[in-house]
């Protein structure tokens, strides 16, 4: 059906809907622009060349030893004094005698330096930096953190003193309460939200189609049981359920980073399949008595085959129609959880968390406004697309 003339006709109808099609294009461009976020917003060079050897710090974590000398210590920041001194030719060398001496030397004696720098010729360096040298998790150096928390991008005057804007330090939208770059978090968060929403929409569609399909196809007792189960599960307020499960699971297992994200993904799948299941159940219930299904049955085609090869391709309308709304629903669920503090853990880029910070710090317009604009426009774009898709694909909808 995907390549059937009917489908092409509907796709053409969608393209003719200017509002929906333009929204679709804009969203695609935004998504494509944020996809290589690592190359645009990062606190390490994309590629660099030191003394003729090439490195790509974005993709790999290097130690000083890897870069040609010194200790086997990972390079934590590519803007630190330590790294700059390394580039200037200093090579740190561990004084082994200092370690041995430590026990025997008298207390009042001058302690030996543990690490001594050997000055060599400056290294030949070429580095390609991303346009914005901040990633979503790069925090300012500890001595600077006070001045860099909640820094406005524009110059402000506080207590009669003029404070230069964070714009100069290439924090185009200022910094958040931990001194992290707002724009970087926004871009990474946008990408994460979209990928998350898309993936969740797809998996919940698959889950819903399987559950609804089985219910509708077999009918009878299977259907009744499934319906009652869905009713029980669906009657529980979803947001509260998600909050409870998220809270419960993240305490049961101490999850961090992507494991935590995966956990959120799983629990959201537990609730998000229900809408799709209802539609697919209705489709399969209708189709099971149609002639082509009966014909397939009498030919001895197996049940899974009938469901997958015969009914499913004829039941794609609800899937396509609801996908955009499913995506926006998934994104909003994640944003809501993040906003309430039950979602992603802090260093992870999240639009909901940014919004929550915006509410906490009402004076920081550079946090609130971009988060609001991003979220609202993302949702409105998805709504426009969804409306267009529905107009094009749903014959009942004029």
């Amino acid at each position: 059906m995907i390549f059937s003339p009917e489908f092409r006709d509907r796709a053409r109808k969608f393209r003719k809907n200017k509002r929906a099609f333009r929204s679709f294009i804009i969203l695609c461009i935004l998504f494509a622009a944020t996809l290589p976020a690592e190359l645009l917003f990062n606190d390490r060079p994309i590629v660099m060349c030191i003394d003729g050897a090439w490195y790509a710090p974005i993709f790999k974590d290097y130690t000083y030893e890897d870069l040609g000398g010194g200790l086997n210590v990972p390079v934590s920041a590519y803007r630190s004094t330590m790294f700059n001194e390394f580039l200037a030719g200093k090579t740190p060398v561990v004084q082994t005698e200092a370690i041995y001496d430590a026990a025997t030397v008298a207390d009042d004696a001058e302690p030996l330096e543990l690490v001594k720098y050997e000055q060599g010729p400056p290294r030949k360096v070429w580095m390609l930096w991303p346009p914005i040298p901040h990633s979503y998790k790069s925090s300012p150096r500890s001595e600077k953190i006070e001045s860099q928390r909640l820094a406005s991008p524009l110059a402000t005057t506080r207590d009669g003193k003029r404070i230069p804007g964070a714009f100069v330090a290439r924090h185009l939208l200022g910094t958040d309460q931990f001194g992290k770059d707002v724009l970087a978090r926004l871009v990474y968060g946008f990408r994460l939200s979209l990928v998350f929403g898309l993936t969740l929409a797809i998996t919940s569609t698959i889950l819903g189609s399987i559950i609804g399909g089985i219910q509708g196809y077999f009918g009878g007792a299977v259907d009744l049981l499934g319906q009652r189960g869905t009713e029980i599960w669906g009657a529980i307020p979803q947001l509260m359920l998600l909050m409870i499960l998220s809270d419960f699971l993240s305490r049961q297992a101490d999850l961090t980073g992507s494991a935590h994200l995966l956990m959120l993904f799983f629990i959201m799948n537990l609730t998000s399949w229900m809408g799709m299941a209802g539609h697919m159940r209705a489709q399969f219930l209708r189709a099971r008595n149609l002639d082509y299904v009966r014909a397939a049955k009498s030919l001895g085609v197996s049940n899974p085959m009938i469901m997958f090869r015969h009914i499913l391709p004829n039941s794609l309308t609800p899937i396509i129609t609801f996908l955009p709304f499913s995506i926006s629903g998934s994104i909003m669920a994640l944003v809501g959880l993040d906003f309430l503090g039950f979602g992603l853990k802090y260093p992870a880029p999240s639009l909901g968390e940014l919004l929550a910070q915006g509410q906490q710090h009402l004076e920081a317009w550079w946090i609130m406004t971009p988060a609001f604009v991003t979220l609202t426009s993302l949702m409105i774009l998805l709504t426009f697309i969804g409306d267009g898709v529905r107009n094009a694909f749903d014959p009942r909808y004029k």
Partner: protein
Amino acid sequence: MWTYIVKRVLLMIPTGIGIITVFFVISEMVPGGPLDQVESMIIEQANTGQGGDGAAAGGQDAQRIKIDPQMRMQIKRKLGLNHNMFHRYMRSLVWCARDSLISSVELDVGQAQKITFRSERFQVYRDDAGFHLFKNAATVNGKSAGIRFDRTDGYFASVLDNTVRFNPVTGAQIDGPASLEAVKTELLSKTFREADYASDGARLTVTETRDELYLKTSSWQTLTDWDNWHGMFLLKFPVSITQNKKCFELIRDRLPISMRLGIISFFLTYILCLLMGVSKAARNGSKYDSVTSVMILIGYGTPGFVLAVFLIRMFGPGSDAIAHLIPLRGIQSSPEIYDQLSVLGKLWDNIHHLIAPIICLTIGSFAGLTMLTKNSVLEEFHQLYAVAARARGLSKRRVLFKHVLRNSLIPLVTGFPAAFVMMFFAGSLLIEKIFSLDGIGLLSYTALVERDYPLIMSNMFIFTYIGLICQLLSDIGYVIVDPRITFEGSKS
């Protein structure tokens, strides 16, 4: 119709059991369980109560403060943890059982406790031999005397100004004026295993296995006493861990605020959608139609709670706001201000506090209903009777209002209760949190943050049932509005 309603009501039961089971499992699996939680809370309170340097020394204090076994037992009793798991589970569904009054753990040797049973008062006293039950009265030298019990010193009986210390079991005087010799108490039992006191068939008894004293009554009396029934299905909700109140009371106190929000936004949505839908249908295809469509879609896309944060930022009382139009929090001004306002002032104060939350609650809900109204009006317009009416020369307006409108409202009415429920809790947890409106949503949120599982469970239970009942109402509404519809034999 009636069979359908009965069927639906019966189907609500497994739903409730399902919810309770899910939460029972979760709250049982919480590390340490509610007991540890309450204990850590008490310790925390004790620490913060110590003032200034409490935070710094908190770590050490937390270890020093210990909860004595008696207190622990009382907490356990309050949370219902003195029962085994099966009983706990059944008690959250439906169960009929007497609550025990006292356990041996709670009552150490040499201690006593008062019991009230059928408005008579008793004392339970424990010595090395076991428990002793006697009436809460004594006679000293033939005169009735009051009894006082002191944790460290034991029993005192006093007549006029004279006080005597005595052993309640033997009646022997320990000290006190020699003139007060013969202390008599009405001892009802000597050991704690046997049937002890009976009045109209009710007996105070101690079970052997659990070391718990409870009232043993005839089964009929047990069954008829409402206090013996437990379980959320009977609307008997557990006690909140954090707030030391029955969950039902907590929810009941907050319900009016949520309902006010819900009802106002519900009617607002319906009225606006109806007006907009009909006017859009009347001017189908015009510029007005397309502009409002876009507006509705934008409203549908805007997430309410995101807008809420934005509104507070831009129009709230903050120093950088564009205009100070809405208050930061609450449903009313603070009582000192509110009480001084005139009636009109109070009304305005309420409206003023509700404007922003209601905008945020309703913004997303116009799309579906307006389009539904518009489509259904348009559909009815193409029906034969409407065409005929037009052909008879009636004006479009007259056909619309006299003929078409009533019929096209059917799909709207059916959605009525369902929409009402949606309003009740769809976005209100977030909105109530952002605007600090002390409704059910905020209650659920704080319960979740503080991990008050009994409260969460009660909340979910009530929410779910409100939802189910409203769904049923919407189905009934269907039939009342359109008698052609029946649910008999309908399978889908």
